[in-house]
């Protein structure tokens, strides 16, 4: 394949550059989009087709220790969904937690070219990087779990905020992470140390540290904004899945004040009612706050009916879900850093709670006033596989289809929502925003999510079709970094993709402060903890943004 391409006659959707369905030519040279047609360019005729930047998944679980445990756990899930190899590509297995190769290839068969693994323990960073190296085609990065880090909490408890900031920056560097992740902040210690208890209130102070979840959230929001990481703290709020949790979510967002914060899978945090009873939708309360606060971004974490796998650093949540079916359950404690829970799961139309979750996700999408900040995700594979994105897109774009699907679900649950009244249909341009331009902007990926000159030549070309699920399910062409990967629906090449990470500056003296703690409480050598550059395959440092 030539390194220069010219894509002609296609309808271009490039919202970042204000282009909404115009017929335009796109030129590619040396992996980038360029202004003028290179001389030796090979042409692709995209007549009748829609051209978009490659998709960017801002929140998924595709690599690392917990993902691999979930893979090993479910041979029965892989068995029915094999992923055969081709002469150019490796084989693998699918299901809700595909093998690394299948993950990369399947993302690309949907037109996605970038995906971010949303929760990695620092000690598991090396493992995650090895898996990401074996996750082909897409560019990728990960968020490092720091919200239950005991050393960092000790610094906060002692009011050592500057050292806290240095340590956060050190940890991001040492793990090759993209940004920080908080999961159920403050919840690990009661889980591991108090016979499986959990923290329930954002202002509940820990007896050990004297810190509340709010203290931790606030410190991270301020610190990460000060450090100017490309993406703000990625927050999985407390009380995920519990009825009445929308108040916790609102309080979490308020804690950020006017600083940047990203709320992960916000659907799982938008429930009304009281703890343990009368769950209802609080989508309106949540989305109104998001709509009116431009510092907040979120991904929806839509629930899709069918098989899923709950895998989360929120161990108490997984244990709670395990209680319903008494099936197989994994708990995995990581020293000084995190918890983890895994439960095979299935969302069913007839179940009240599952329908409620499905409807709340759609409400959030349909009531969102700024698609640039309310982004598409299923929290893969928690709410459903990323392979269900095309169906989700159709649900958003096609009200007739939505009405048909609404007939299949638990009507009592639907009564608790306003979904029946929402008439909105997403446009192709809005889809391009919530799946490409928006996540790229929220992640500060300046070369992604758009088709302007200088952008990475990550491009998807779909046949324009009435059935949007069919359309988004099978792009005719996928180009990654200027290389043809899918051509006329067939794999014609392979590509390793690159690691996206950030390198905030820090004072190296912080290592002297971390080290003694480390020697006392970790089980590996401090010198062997930080991940060396040998684990970076092709990579790119994403520059931060200064907001303060």
């Amino acid at each position, binding site marked *: 394949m030539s390194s220069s391409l010219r894509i002609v006659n296609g309808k271009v959707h490039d919202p970042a550059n204000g282009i909404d369905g115009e017929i335009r030519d796109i030129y590619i040279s040396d992996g980038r989009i360029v202004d003028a047609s290179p001389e030796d360019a090979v042409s692709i005729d995209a007549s009748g087709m829609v051209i978009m930047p490659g998709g960017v998944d801002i929140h998924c679980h595709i690599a690392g220790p917990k993902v691999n445990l979930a893979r090993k756990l479910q*041979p029965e899930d892989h068995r029915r969904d094999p992923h055969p190899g081709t002469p150019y590509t490796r084989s693998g297995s699918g299901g809700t937690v595909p093998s690394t190769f299948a993950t990369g290839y399947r993302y690309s068969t949907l037109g996605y070219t970038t995906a971010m693994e949303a929760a990695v323990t620092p000690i598991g960073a090396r493992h995650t990087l090895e898996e990401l190296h074996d996750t082909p085609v897409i560019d990728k990065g990960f968020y490092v779990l720091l919200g239950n880090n005991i050393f960092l909490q000790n610094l906060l408890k002692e009011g050592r905020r500057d050292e806290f900031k240095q340590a956060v920056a050190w940890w991001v560097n040492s793990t090759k992470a993209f940004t920080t992740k908080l999961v159920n902040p403050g919840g690990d210690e009661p889980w591991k140390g108090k016979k499986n208890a959990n923290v329930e209130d954002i202002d509940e102070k820990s007896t050990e540290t004297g810190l509340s979840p709010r203290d931790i959230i606030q410190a991270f929001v301020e610190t990460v904004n000060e450090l100017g990481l490309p993406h703000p703290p990625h927050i999985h709020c407390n009380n995920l899945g519990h009825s009445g949790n929308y108040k916790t979510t609102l309080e979490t967002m308020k804690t950020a004040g006017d600083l940047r914060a990203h709320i992960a899978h916000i659907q799982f945090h938008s429930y009304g009612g009281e703890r343990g009873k009368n769950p209802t939708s609080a989508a309106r309360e949540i989305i109104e706050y998001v709509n009116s606060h431009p510092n907040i971004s979120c991904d929806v974490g839509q629930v899709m009916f069918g098989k899923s796998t709950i895998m989360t650093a929120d161990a108490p949540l997984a244990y709670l879900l395990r209680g319903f079916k008494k099936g197989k359950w994994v708990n995995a404690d990581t020293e000084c850093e995190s918890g983890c829970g895994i439960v095979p799961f299935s969302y069913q139309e007839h179940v009240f709670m599952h329908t409620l979750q499905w409807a709340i996700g759609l409400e959030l999408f349909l009531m969102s006033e700024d698609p640039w900040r309310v982004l598409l995700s299923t929290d893969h594979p928690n709410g459903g596989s990323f392979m269900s994105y095309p169906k989700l897109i159709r649900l958003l774009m096609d009200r007739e289809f939505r009405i048909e699907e609404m007939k299949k679900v638990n009507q009592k649950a639907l009564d608790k929502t306003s979904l029946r009244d929402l008439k909105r249909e997403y446009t192709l341009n809005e889809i391009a925003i919530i799946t490409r331009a928006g996540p790229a902007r929220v992640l500060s990926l300046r070369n992604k999510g758009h088709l302007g000159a200088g952008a990475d030549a990550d491009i998807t070309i779909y046949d324009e079709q009435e059935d949007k699920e069919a359309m988004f399910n099978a792009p005719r062409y996928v180009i990654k970094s200027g290389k043809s990967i899918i051509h006329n629906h067939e794999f014609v090449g392979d590509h390793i993709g690159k690691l996206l990470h950030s390198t905030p500056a820090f004072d190296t003296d912080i290592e002297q402060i971390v080290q003694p703690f480390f020697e006392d409480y970790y089980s590996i050598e401090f010198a062997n903890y930080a991940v060396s550059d040998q684990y970076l395959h092709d990579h790119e440092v994403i520059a931060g943004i200064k907001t303060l």
Partner: protein
Amino acid sequence: MSLKLTLHTSPDVPLEAPCLNPDTLAGMTADIVAAQKVMHGNQAASVGDFFKVAGKANGTLELEGDLSRVKYIGAGMQSGILNVTGNVGQHLGAGMSGGDIRVDGDAGDWVAPEMRGGRVTITGNAGHLVGGAPRGSAIGMLGGEIIIHGNVRNETGHAMRNGLIAVGGTSGDFTGVNMLAGTIIVLGDMGNRSGAGMQRGSIVSMNPAEMLPTFTHACVYRPEFLRLLLLHIRSAGLPVNDDHIEGAYDRWCGDVVEVNRGEILLLNGA
């Protein structure tokens, strides 16, 4: 005349031949049958490379030869009759939902895993995991019946949810392990740990058996359903005698580790 396939060349490595079932071959002429694809290890081959094909498909398929290296015979079968003269390999009748398989010989491991209906009869012995569930799955056989005249090995009826497995000889360890419901009858000795983790269902043996400490003796009685089942498997050719049919049985309840609604019935005074 039915369709008859006679092995003329033994496979060097395992041969995977799920096409060897009366549904798939229905309506095919001998030439087309011979051209059907099979996998010889990792290499594609055709039925004719290994079998002489004669006759015409009429719902009955006859196989002959030592097929102990041939896997997935009768897999996914929905109807018709499959008769084998000779031994068969692993995964006989995997996932079958109907029809009748009879093997005059021995069968390898995984006879009729995830079976949903129909019948399998083996006149010789069978291997491990008869009517079982694949690893990781919580549900095995869903229906139908498996009659084995000889012996079976471990994990017979692993996680079965419905149906009947009857064994004329002995069974190995963990007979009916994790079973959800259904019936397993073993006329000979059972290995240890029968019924471990069972929720519901019945495991019956004519010989004394080592019971797990999580089973309790409930009573001695003459269960009516068992007489009917025993008459049924006697008619299928298993050596059920009048003492079995008229005898009283010790009823053990378990597994208390689970919901304690399963039972193991042992012929009293045996």
